[in-house]
């Protein structure tokens, strides 16, 4: 016999857990595998996008009747979003109009340009629910989950004590468990040094490996998130998956360049618990690396009803919302004491070519009204239709 059938399958595919965001699931290669840890880094001090993703993670767990463990107070859970009947229809997205736009026949069969992925209709309803950011989780749902022991809370303490509590929680569960650690490293955790943060995350990952029925999602407090001396790379090495969400609030130039997005997404590491290649490399539509080409740049957008991760594109005009073809006028202060001017006046300095004396330089104050060119007008004379008057 030259071959035999392998009966045992030691490398069975890992069970995936949805993060509640279809686009983030796609980036992770279908979801977060059990026994893996995900770290969300949002360095912007003014926004809490990392925590928003965490709330999706918890809401998805509660909506699909899974066991959830949160390291934090119960109040935090009440801030989660919840399901609504019209959540699938985003108010910011224009519905397709009834009038059919006439386009060239050869382009008619082409798919519409998409920047994100939608919830797949083929997956089961529980796999990834559609949440609405304008709806809060009902108190009855939280109370019911606490009463059923589907939701367990671990108080914030020092990292060592939290690890002990998590070990006990994991030992008492046999069903799949989501562990959510919001704002890790905030002042409630004590005065943590970077090595304490890394040691906790490292131990947490080892704990998940010993209890492979659980997965953990952690987001770092904003003050621990800025990238200095390779900090994000260290977090990427220490955890299975690490994703940085850099909001544009810290950089207005980027906000102007990408008006459709609210921040950039950088993938530091992706989970590959049982192989050398992350599943995302093969299955992710958003990253686009499966096609053999380069990887797409990614960003995120938070509308009134939902958060989504998207591919990053420049606008039609090349990244700016309006054309910036006219150069700004250079303003030079005159040498002599100027006469009081109106705010709308512009100062233009003219120097005759070849002259070296300062006297040759004349300062002319132009009224903005005079200097402003009149807008182009196109006139059409009814008696002479062949002539346009510009």
């Amino acid at each position, binding site marked *: 016999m030259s071959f035999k059938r392998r009966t045992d399958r*030691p490398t069975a595919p890992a069970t995936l857990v949805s993060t509640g965001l279809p686009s983030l699931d796609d980036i992770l290669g279908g979801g977060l595998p059990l026994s893996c840890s995900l770290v969300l880094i949002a360095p912007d001090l003014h926004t809490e996008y990392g925590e928003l993703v965490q709330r999706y993670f918890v809401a998805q767990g509660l909506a699909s009747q899974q066991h959830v463990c949160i390291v934090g107070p119960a109040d935090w859970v009440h801030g989660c979003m919840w399901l609504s009947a019209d959540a699938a229809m985003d108010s910011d997205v224009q519905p397709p109009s009834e009038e059919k736009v006439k386009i060239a026949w050869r382009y008619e069969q082409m798919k519409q340009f998409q920047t994100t992925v939608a919830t797949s209709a083929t997956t089961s309803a529980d796999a990834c629910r559609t949440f609405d950011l304008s709806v809060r989780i009902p108190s009855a749902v939280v109370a019911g989950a606490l009463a059923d022991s589907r939701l367990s809370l671990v108080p914030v303490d020092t990292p060592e004590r939290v690890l002990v509590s998590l070990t006990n929680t994991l030992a008492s569960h046999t069903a799949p468990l989501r562990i959510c650690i919001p704002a890790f490293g905030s002042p409630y955790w004590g005065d943590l040094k970077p090595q304490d943060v890394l040691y906790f995350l490292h131990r947490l990952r*080892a704990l998940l490996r010993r209890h492979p029925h659980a997965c953990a999602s952690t987001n770092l407090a904003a003050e621990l998130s800025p990238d200095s001396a*390779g900090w994000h790379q*260290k977090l990427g*090495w220490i955890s299975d998956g690490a994703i940085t969400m850099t909001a544009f609030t810290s950089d207005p130039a980027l906000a102007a360049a990408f008006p459709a997005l609210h921040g950039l997404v950088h993938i530091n590491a992706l989970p590959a618990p049982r192989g050398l*290649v992350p599943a995302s490399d093969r299955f992710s539509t958003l990253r686009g690396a499966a096609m*053999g080409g380069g990887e797409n740049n990614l960003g995120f957008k938070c509308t009134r009803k939902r958060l989504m991760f998207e591919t990053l594109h420049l606008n039609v005009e090349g990244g700016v919302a309006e054309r910036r073809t006219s150069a700004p006028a250079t303003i030079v202060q005159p040498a002599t004491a100027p006469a009081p001017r109106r705010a709308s006046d512009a100062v233009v300095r003219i120097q005759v070519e070849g002259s070296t004396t300062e006297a040759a330089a004349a300062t002319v104050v132009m009224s903005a009204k005079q200097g402003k060119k009149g807008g182009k007008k196109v006139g059409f004379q009814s008696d002479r239709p062949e002539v346009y008057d510009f």
Partner: protein
Amino acid sequence: MFSPFDLPPGILLLVTDQLSSPADFVLHRALIDHLKATKSNTKTKVIVLSVSEDLARWKAIAAKSNLHLDQQSASGAFTFIDVLERVCPPNTDADSSIAPRPILLPILDAMASALGPPDTGHDTLVIMDDLAALDWLGFPVLDVTRFCRALHAMCRKANATLLLRQHVLTPSAADPILDDLFRALRQMCTYHLEVLPLTSGRSGAVSGQVALHAGPGMLRSGVKLLPRSSALQYKLTDGGAVFFERGMGAGVL
């Protein structure tokens, strides 16, 4: 050691990698090739000192190459030592007047018992999967360096090959990231295998590139070195990596 590099046994190979091009495949391939090598008179043995990777992942990846580590472990050919189960980083707030004791000594003891007496004639490979994590978790660099020296000395006595992996951090800004541990390791090694990402970013067709440099301990041998300018490119698959010359990969041309 493993193709296509054909490194001699009994060396200290330093493997460095970056976050976007992890060198996991080098470690796993070294383990699989070593345990699968058929030698008539010598038994092969692999000892893994693990800081970051768990045993289940080693087993899962080896199983894809039809190598069952449970059987190898039962026969004594494979030993797995979890470093952080035996030691923990020192408490820096503790009283420093107490005489310092080598923190990583329990690992060396475990290593010595796993290696066995030096004249057993085993062809041994020792893999240390992550030294940078020890540094980041708070182990003093001096302790880690001394540990590596002691490990190297033990391996030389047993004529074993030592493979050390160190992560290299790339600076995001202009200021360089100083890494004393890497400098010490670079001075110690026989060869330095550098796994690099593509400078143009991630790609689906090419996962990264590998360069091979000579270390201070290199003896004269017929190993062909690969500078960065002519680094060998690779594409990761589930079972391992496929190497090809630059510009020769499927989907590249």
